[in-house]
């Protein structure tokens, strides 16, 4: 049904339609509306779930782990300090191979205190074993959250999935989006290692150096398998609902000599910059990275690359720029822009492309 609402509302509706059995959450700006909406759905009966209001984010993920260990579908949502507070439990949930789905409203970490959009929170959870998707529109936030359950719960994956949306820019924007008839798209959960209360038993979870690597390798197998599973689920979604997604959303890239790469809402705004540059005779295109883990395979050979990072790894550089350097062998012009919700317009993005240098770095608002 075509409707209009915020990015947060889109996520909440997707969760309602995915019918999780347990939602455990703690509110934090700018995620709050997601868990408020879900609490409303549980109260008014439009969702048949157990909603557990917990006292912290560490506990919300712990509660999801407990619930998912019994084999039921679980969801939570957080942001920023809430996400880093649950960090230990993120490792726990991925290590225990529990297909939890979480929405994260990307927000800067303090101090200085700031509630604006930044990717530093989720990217600092890069190596936890969670899959990470970054939405660019409210529609995509709805679709990706819904699909995330089928991807996470797939027998070849069994890893948790984090759906990221830019704080305020996407969580709080009111946009049109279309909800779906969810019936039959998500198969029932089938967690092979679910706790069986009819046959109770205890397992030692200590793994020594002669076994631990096998479990780590198995996480990586799930992560590698997820590439095909993401494709399969997104294709099944397109076949049924007529909305098509790829790991990387390309815009005017066919003959592009310079490609702008970013994640989240900047990845949509930059399409307007591409149009401006094309009018100036610059053969520009853009690639919006939707899935950061697993990291996509991208062919950038023979192209100049401009990467916009809404994040930074101190002492090293823009995180996305360096992932692309490592994975694709490109020499991008790395732009650091949009930190803490810093306003970045399509005109600004076009200017980044005009000032590009091979392997250069530009801090928007700092450098002249």
């Amino acid at each position, binding site marked *: 049904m075509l409707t209009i609402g915020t990015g947060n509302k889109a996520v909440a509706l997707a969760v309602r339609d995915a019918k999780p059995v347990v939602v455990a959450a703690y509110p934090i700006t700018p995620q709050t509306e997601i868990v408020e909406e879900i609490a409303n759905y549980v109260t008014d009966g439009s969702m048949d779930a157990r909603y557990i209001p917990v006292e912290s984010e560490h506990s919300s993920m712990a509660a999801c782990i407990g619930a998912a260990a019994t084999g039921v579908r679980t969801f939570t949502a957080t942001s920023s300090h809430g996400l880093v507070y649950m960090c230990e439990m993120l490792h726990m949930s991925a290590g225990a191979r529990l297909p939890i789905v979480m929405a994260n409203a990307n927000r800067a970490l303090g101090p200085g205190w700031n509630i604006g959009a930044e990717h530093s929170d989720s990217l600092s959870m890069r190596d936890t074993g969670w899959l990470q998707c970054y939405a660019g529109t409210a529609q995509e936030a709805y679709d990706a959250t819904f699909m995330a359950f089928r991807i996470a719960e797939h027998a070849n994956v069994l890893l948790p999935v984090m759906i990221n949306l830019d704080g305020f820019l996407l969580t709080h*924007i009111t946009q049109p989006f279309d909800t779906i008839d969810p019936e039959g798209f998500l198969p029932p959960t089938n967690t092979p290692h679910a706790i069986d209360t009819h046959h109770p038993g205890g397992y030692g979870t200590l793994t020594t150096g002669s076994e631990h690597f096998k479990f780590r390798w198995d996480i990586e197998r799930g992560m590698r398998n997820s590439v095909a599973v993401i494709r399969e689920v997104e294709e099944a979604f397109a076949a049924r609902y007529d909305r098509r997604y790829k790991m990387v959303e390309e815009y005017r890239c066919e003959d592009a000599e310079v490609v702008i790469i970013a994640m989240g809402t900047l990845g*949509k*705004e930059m399409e*307007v910059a591409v149009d401006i540059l094309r009018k100036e005779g610059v053969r520009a295109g853009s690639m919006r990275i939707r899935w950061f883990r697993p990291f996509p395979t991208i062919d950038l050979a023979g192209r100049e690359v401009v990467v916009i990072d809404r994040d930074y790894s101190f002492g090293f550089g823009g995180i996305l720029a360096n992932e692309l350097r490592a994975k694709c062998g490109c020499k991008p012009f790395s732009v650091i822009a949009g930190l803490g919700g810093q306003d970045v317009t399509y005109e600004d993005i076009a200017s980044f492309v005009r000032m590009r240098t091979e392997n250069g770095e530009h801090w928007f608002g700092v450098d002249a």
Partner: protein
Amino acid sequence: MYEIRLHSRGGQGGVTAAKVLAYAAFLDGKYATATPLYGAERRGAPVVSFIRVDDTPIRVYSQVRTPDLVIVLDASIMELVDVTAGLKEDGVVLINSPHPVEVKGHTTYTVDLTSIALSLKMVLAGNPILNTPLIGAIAKMGIISRESAEKAIAGTFPDERNVEAALKAFEELKI
């Protein structure tokens, strides 16, 4: 793309007005977005919201820099903020005020939303409710249809006085 910047004070309902306006444009079959600009909001502090309306999907998330329309819910803000900053040459200003206000170089409309709200006893936490009559005024300007304005308000607020207030503003605004 038609771009609107809405100036209000925290507690006046500017953020909600932006949402209802986008909802009404959506009901007109347009693509519309509404974005609040959040800082350290508190009651009475100047706040800004952005609304965009277009015939094609909107890919812009940054702040509105060159609005076609500036709305001012509280004329006293004009002493603190340059509300016409970036306003297009042919841009228009709509001000909630009991007296006509002139903004140099721009067509300026005034409507007394506060009196409309008070006449219907629409007061929330001590503040007259300005957002729903505002939607009526915007409909009068032709940015959204009157039908969609009514539907969007009725679909957001159960209290029927909101639609009544919008229709009153629609009547009172002289174009």
